[in-house]
Each structure stands twice: as C-alpha cells, then as structure tokens.
C-alpha cells in the first residue's frame, strides 16, 4: 500500500488499473479527460495490459463498452454531463443486455445554459436506466468505489453495469491523500471476471440482444433488471463488509455522521456533503443535535437503511444538487417515498442548492439547520427553497439591466 496525493480523476484511473480492466473505449470531455489520458499513458508504458480505443462519440463509446462486456472481458469507461446524456439510449440498452462493466461519470451541469461546473442532473438522468449508481464524496472513495463497483456488477446475483459518480472540479481536480492498495490485495478482493453465460465459445454461437414481441416477455425481462437491482442491496453490504475487512475502510450504502442522537438530519449526496459534515461539527459545538446522512448508493436506493437512520428524527433537511423541474429535488422525492406512511417519519424540508457548481457555504448550511429546526418546532413543512443569496440576485439583475439597455439600443425587432 502506498499513500499519495491524487486527484479524483487519478483515483478513478487507479481504480480501473487495479481492477485490471481489459478494454477502455474512450471519448474526451471536460472534466473527465484526465482519467482516460492516465489509462492511455499506463497502457503505453506497459504498466497495464489493456486496450484503449478512441471512438467518435459517447454514443458509440457506451455501445462498444456494452458489446465488449458481452464477450466476457472487463470493461471500463468514463464520461461526464452531455456525454452521458448523448449515450443515454445505450445506457438503457446495455443495462438490458445484463452486461457488467463500470462507467465513471464526472458530474457536470447540463446544457442549457452551457456550463462546466458540477451538479447531479447528469447522473440522475440515468437513474432509471438499469445502471446501478455509487456516489462518492472523496478521492479515496472514488478509487475504492470503482473496485466495489466491479465486484457488485459482476456478482451472479446482480449482473448489471454500474456508474461511479464524482463531482467535477470539486473532486475531479482536487488532490487528496489516497492509499493505493497493492495489486495482490485487490486481486484477492476482485477475482478475474467470470463471464458465465457471456462468452464466445467455439461451436456454441449465441445470439444476444434479440427483440421480444409483446408486453409479456418485455415485462419479464425488464422486471428481471428490477429484481437484480434489488438483489444488489444485500450483495453490496456483503461486498462492503469484505472490503472493510481487507482494507480497513468502510463504505456503507448509506453513510451516517452524528446521526444517532440527532434531532435534525441533513441529507446530501456527493462531495458537497463534506461541507455539511464540517457544518455539523460546528453546529454540534454550539450544542445543536444535528447529523448528516449521505446515501452512497442511489440505485438500488437503500430505503431500509435510510429508514433505520431516520425514523424517529424530528426533521430532515434534504439538500439536492439537482432539479427535476415541476417537482423539485430528486433525493427529496426518493426519501419521501422511503419514509411515507412509516411511524416516526420525520418532517422533510427540501432545499435545492449547488446547481452548476454554485457553492453551498457554511452559513447557508447553518441557516438550513435553523429553518428546519423551526419548521419542526411548528410542525409545518416549509416550501422547497432554492439556495440563492440577495447578493447573487443583485449581480444577476445588474447583468439583466445591461442586457435590457443593449436591447433598447438596438430597437424593436425588424
């Protein structure tokens, strides 16, 4: 084991390297490109026995990944944002092929307007595709999650592809101390891919990805994906326990921090949750019983684990770094579904923040805790709220004024 400073992107690349992947279809996109560039460098230097092929888009990249996995080799790829969405058609398709492989997504806000900075709408767009999803908050977690993801994907009870998500910029380009496990240790955790039925065998040709006619067989096969994804909950716990035993690092499906005696719990996914963790420490110093819950798995959704931590609390503040227009925060909806009708279900306050990389400073987290405590006091669920300051609005109004002057200067449209 070595401890070095790695960016989230480098940690993802190390995960793929240690997993001894065979094939990496690639297409560049900011802020992901360093992952595939690192793999290309190692392959070139003979440090990795894999083949990296550049494709002409993410659509063909994800297709190639799925097809290669269907021949029984271990496949890795990485993308971000528009790239993930451009490949969306194939996400559903390759998940339906039941081919295990791992795709790292480096979260970045979606167009329009165009941005490079992170939020979670990209990866959440893939929520219903059949891919499982692991969300990371730190660089070590990225490396470890790639390894966990292969074990999970390839397990005979699961056999589904997995997305490992990390936030662009905040993780992709931030260096943190990371322990790189010894290859032999990883080999013990992650044996060579056992393709089972997915293989080319001389004299036994198989046709894959065939059409079905009618809703009967269609429903059957789609529901098989649901059952496999549900199996993944117990399988994940097993794998995470094995991982913790081998490496001394625990990556539960849901990470709870200061939750046991908390009355109000902040719920967040991804790297911004580390800000909430620091805020919880400060609030605790001030004597306020606040905790933090961070689901690492989004699919399958660890509803039972969330309930275990949350039933009996006074209130939750769910901070969503995503927006489902016409509904609100996706995580808030997921949690509401997990808690609805259960005795002891806490009040749920929903906040939307950190869109397009917008920061969530400590003061806002304190304010969120305060608003949620007050709501619990009154027993009234507050309306969903966008985290946005007066100063930001003033700045935007200034720009709008400039735009209006410009428009007037030009006169009416011809």
């Amino acid at each position, binding site marked *: 084991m070595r401890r070095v400073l790695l960016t989230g992107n480098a940690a993802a690349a190390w995960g793929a390297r240690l997993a001894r992947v065979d094939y990496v279809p690639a297409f560049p*996109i900011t802020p992901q490109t360093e992952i595939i560039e690192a793999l290309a*460098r190692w392959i070139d230097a003979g440090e990795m026995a894999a083949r990296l092929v550049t494709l002409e*888009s993410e659509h063909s990249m994800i297709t190639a990944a799925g097809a290669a996995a269907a021949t029984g080799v271990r496949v890795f790829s990485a993308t971000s944002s528009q790239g993930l969405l451009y490949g969306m058609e194939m996400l559903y398709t390759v998940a339906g092929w039941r081919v295990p492989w791992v795709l790292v997504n480096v979260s970045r806000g979606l167009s329009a307007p165009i941005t490079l900075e992170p939020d979670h709408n990209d990866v959440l767009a893939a929520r219903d595709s059949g891919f499982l999803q692991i969300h990371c908050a730190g660089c070590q977690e990225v490396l470890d999650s790639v390894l966990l993801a292969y074990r999970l994907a390839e397990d005979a009870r699961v056999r589904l592809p997995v997305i490992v998500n990390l936030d662009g910029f905040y993780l992709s380009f931030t260096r943190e101390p990371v322990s790189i496990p010894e290859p032999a240790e990883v080999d013990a955790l992650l044996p060579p891919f056992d393709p089972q039925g997915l293989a080319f065998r001389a004299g036994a040709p198989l046709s894959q990805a065939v059409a079905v006619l009618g809703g009967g067989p269609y429903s059957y096969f789609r529901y098989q994906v649901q059952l496999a994804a549900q199996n993944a909950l117990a399988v994940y716990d097993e794998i995470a326990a094995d991982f913790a035993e081998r490496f001394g690092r625990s990556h539960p499906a849901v990470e709870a921090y200061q939750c046991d005696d908390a009355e109000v719990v902040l719920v967040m996914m991804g790297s911004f949750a580390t800000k909430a963790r620091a805020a919880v420490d400060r609030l605790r110093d001030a004597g306020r019983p606040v905790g933090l819950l961070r689901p690492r798995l989004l699919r399958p959704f660890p509803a039972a684990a969330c309930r275990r931590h949350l039933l009996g609390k006074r209130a939750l503040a769910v901070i969503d770094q995503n927006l489902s227009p016409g509904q609100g925060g996706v995580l808030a909806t997921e949690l509401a579904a997990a808690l609805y009708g259960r005795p002891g279900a806490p009040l749920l306050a929903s906040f939307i923040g950190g869109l397009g990389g917008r920061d969530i400073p400590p003061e806002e987290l304190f304010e969120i805790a305060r608003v949620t405590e007050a709501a619990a006091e009154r027993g009234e669920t507050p309306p969903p709220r966008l985290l946005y300051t007066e100063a930001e609005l003033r700045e935007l109004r200034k720009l709008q004024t400039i735009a209006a002057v410009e428009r007037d200067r030009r006169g009416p449209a011809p």
Partner: protein
Amino acid sequence: MATETRTHALKAKEYKSDIAPVWCPGCGHFAVLSALTKALAYLELPKERVALVSGIGCSSRLPAYLDTYGFHGLHGRALAVATGLKAARPELTVVVAGGDGDGFSIGGNHFLHACRRNMDLTYIVMDNEVYGMTKGQASPTTAPEWSRSKLTPHGPGVRRFRPAAIALAAGASFIARGFAGDPSGLTRLIVQAIEHRGFSFLQVLSPCQTFRPEQTEWKQQVHPFDGEPAANDLEAAARIHADDGMALGLIYVEPLPVWQPLAQPSASLAEIEQELSL
C-alpha cells in the same frame, strides 16, 4: 406596418461584438472571424438578417464574437440547429461554424445529410486536425501517425476522413477549401459560399497553435488548386482525387435543387378538414 428599408454600409468591424475572443494567441480561428466579418460587410448583409450557428469547441465560440444573431448549440448538433432555423426562417442568411471534431466526429451524420438535403446554408469547418477545446486529442482529420496526444501516444492509427470527398459523395453543391493564413482568399471563399444557393461546404485550414504548433508549416505547404472549379460531380471527383489536402480555392460548384419546405401550405385548413371529415 411599413417596413423600414435601411441602408447597410457597415464596416467589417461593426459585425464584431464587444466580447474579446478567448482563443490562444495565434489561433487560426481569429482569421476566420475576421474574414467572416469582411464577407458580411462586402455582401452588405444587415446584421439582423444573419444567424451564426455553432456546436461546441474553441471554433464553436465564434457566434459570441459576432454582433449578428447567434446560437451556440451542442457538441455535434450545429447543422441540426441550423436546419431547423433555416426551415422556419428562410429569409435569414444562416452560417454554421464549428470544428473538425464537432462536424466530422460526433456530428458526422448531420454532415452527410446536410450535404444531400442541400438547404441554403453555409457550413464553415475550422479544421485544425485536433480537438482543441478538450486539450489535444486526435480528430477524424488527424493523420494516423500523429503521436502527440496523450490519449493516442502512437497516433490514432486510423485513415483520415476526407471532408471534400465525403461532401461530394453526400451530394453537396459547393465545396471549397480556405486557409486562415490567406485572409483575402478566405474572405472571397466565404462570400462565394454565402452567395451560392444551396449547401456550401467550406473547409478552412485553421491552425491550433497550442496543440498542433507544427501547423505553422502549413504556410509553406498550401498552394492553389490547379485549373477552374469543377462544374459537375465527375470533374469534381477528379479534382478531389488529385488533391493533396493542402490545395486552396473553390473545388466544385453546381446549381442543384435547393430543399426548402414550402412557406405556404399547399391546402387551406378548410380543405384539409374536409378531407379528414368522416
């Protein structure tokens, strides 16, 4: 309402917006921007009659630097956006600009169909044989042995996409090649491309200083095309076959039927309703 007829003797620089380009010093794309404004001034096109559409890439930033209508689309989708725009507003001069990655990689299928649809669009591909914006990966026009990309240290190893040949095969009616280092020749070609009725494909060799510094040598390698522009596809095929990829000028132009949806419906609403009534 009476429409005002204004006289438009704008200077080239008046077509520029007040946003300073964020291109690297010496990037070929500056010359394309400048030639385009000169062409618009020469053609005396009112700003509000011109729409610039792009995809994503360094080159695709171009619309922001012009004071005309602009549309910054998605990676690879510039031609699809332009097709919709032109279908709805045929009176606009629609110019599409983007990179070789945008147009030939992720957006390659639109290129084929835009050529054969032959709408009255001008498509300028600022070709630097690299993905500039994502920091230097091979594009479809990159030489197979170019080994300076971190992603393909031994070169992409794939035969190059041949834009002119493909445009011809796909049915384009105007094919030309310009060079950022030849601003007046480039301006002339842009004027001709805009004036041509139909899909005008203009490949511009536009060096990337940062990731392809060796492209400064293009200055010594370019040369004019021999002979006159081809007037039919057979002649065009012969010219393109003999081309070394560095010849500049108008390669082929032929008036072919232009596709534009009818502005007027072919039947009245009453007639349609009558036909549909049971």
